[in-house]
């Protein structure tokens, strides 16, 4: 699939069914609102929310860590949904959505692991524990997401790539539930605490800021998925254009 020229809307405009860009007025305002939201969360999280009684200022990392983790679940959940829809309906739209979700999920899951390690050192006394169920299942989820994208890059027809990836996406998504429930199922095999949010263990401003961070993370995910979806859509159209052009050229050479 050719990627060359995707940044040249004028050159492509004649070949495509729709606009040769990934943005729209809606995504512009969504992006602007997301940036404003990030600024708001940063101001609240760094300047307004009091330090934690035990953890001190380290607590502030939860405003990035927890939304990243839930965002990674949601984005890879979208991949699973897209995979089901591809296998069921053979819908190209859903396959592109699944791909877009996985790329965003990799980013967020990576961020979850990094922020978790940065929090773990001053809190637990270690960056990483290889036997810790929560940590290792999250790493496995990250690797599965990377594997999903690698499987897509193995090549083949668009249909075979989509089917292969859909199977990996569906099998991998089972791990979301395992990661999420691991702190309850194997409480004695992880340093990670159980959910503070669902058990109402967060206070006032910390809770408010975290909820705001969830909203902003959801907006950021929406923005990224929309752009990545449109890139995927343009790539498909470019591939189709290349095929049609090649067929026309060959027919012309053969005089038919």
């Amino acid at each position: 699939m050719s990627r060359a020229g995707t940044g040249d809307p004028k050159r492509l405009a004649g070949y495509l069914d729709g606009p040769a860009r990934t943005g729209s007025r809606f995504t512009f305002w969504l992006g602007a609102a997301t940036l404003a939201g990030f600024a708001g969360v940063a101001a609240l999280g760094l300047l307004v929310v009091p330090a934690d009684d035990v953890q001190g200022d380290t607590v502030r990392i939860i405003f990035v860590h927890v939304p990243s983790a839930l965002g990674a679940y949601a984005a890879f959940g979208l991949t699973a949904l897209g995979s089901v829809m591809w296998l069921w309906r053979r819908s190209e739209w859903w396959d592109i959505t699944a791909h877009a979700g996985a790329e965003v999920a990799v980013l967020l899951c990576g961020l979850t692991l990094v922020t978790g390690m940065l929090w773990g050192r001053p809190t637990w006394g270690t960056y990483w524990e290889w036997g810790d169920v929560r940590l290792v299942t999250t790493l496995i989820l990250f690797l599965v997401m990377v594997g999903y994208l690698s499987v897509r890059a193995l090549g083949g027809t668009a249909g075979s790539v989509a089917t292969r990836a859909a199977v990996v996406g569906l099998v991998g998504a089972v791990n979301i539930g395992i990661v999420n429930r691991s702190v309850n199922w194997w409480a004695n095999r992880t340093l990670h605490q159980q959910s503070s949010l669902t058990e109402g263990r967060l206070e006032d401003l910390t809770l408010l800021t975290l909820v705001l961070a969830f909203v902003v993370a959801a907006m950021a995910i929406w923005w990224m998925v929309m752009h990545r979806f449109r890139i995927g859509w343009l790539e498909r159209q470019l591939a189709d254009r290349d095929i049609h052009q090649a067929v026309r050229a060959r027919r012309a050479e053969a005089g038919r």
Partner: protein
Amino acid sequence: MDDAPAGKAQEATQETDLSPLTPRPGPRPARARRSVAALVVVAVAAAVSLLVTNLLGDASLFFYNADEAVERRDELAGKRFTLQGTPIAAPVNTFWDDRPVLAFGVGFNDVVVDVVHTGDPPELFQPGVPVVLEGAWRLGPGPGPVIADDGWHFASDRMLVKHDNDYRERDNYTERISEAEEGGTIP
């Protein structure tokens, strides 16, 4: 040779560029990209298998709560394991076999274990915040305060803090009380 097809081809040439089609310059040649992707897939599959095997296979990764460790002392004696409990008082800095150690007690479900820890504790180590300790049972009391008084202590050389899910905002209550005390003093 028939001229008609050649004529058609010439006509088509004017509309379509028939110069030899060369692959578009991409980030990498397609075959190389596929090989890298295949290597990544194999590496990911191997890493996932290794991690799952390690996770399922290593029983020493299980944290025994203090009450369970006491209950299963005969079974665990002589073995290295991980004990989980909450420090019940400030640790005492002392010496054991000429080495600096921390002596304290940890509790779980109303059962207390005396601990003698060698090495630096994590920054967050304090009474009331649960810890997990790697070590083994040792017969005889430790050098510090004897709380459990059962003739045993747990000798640990690795400590991690297991923070619970309670988040409490540090308010200015204590600070305000001391300010009020100072402000309320009659000179």
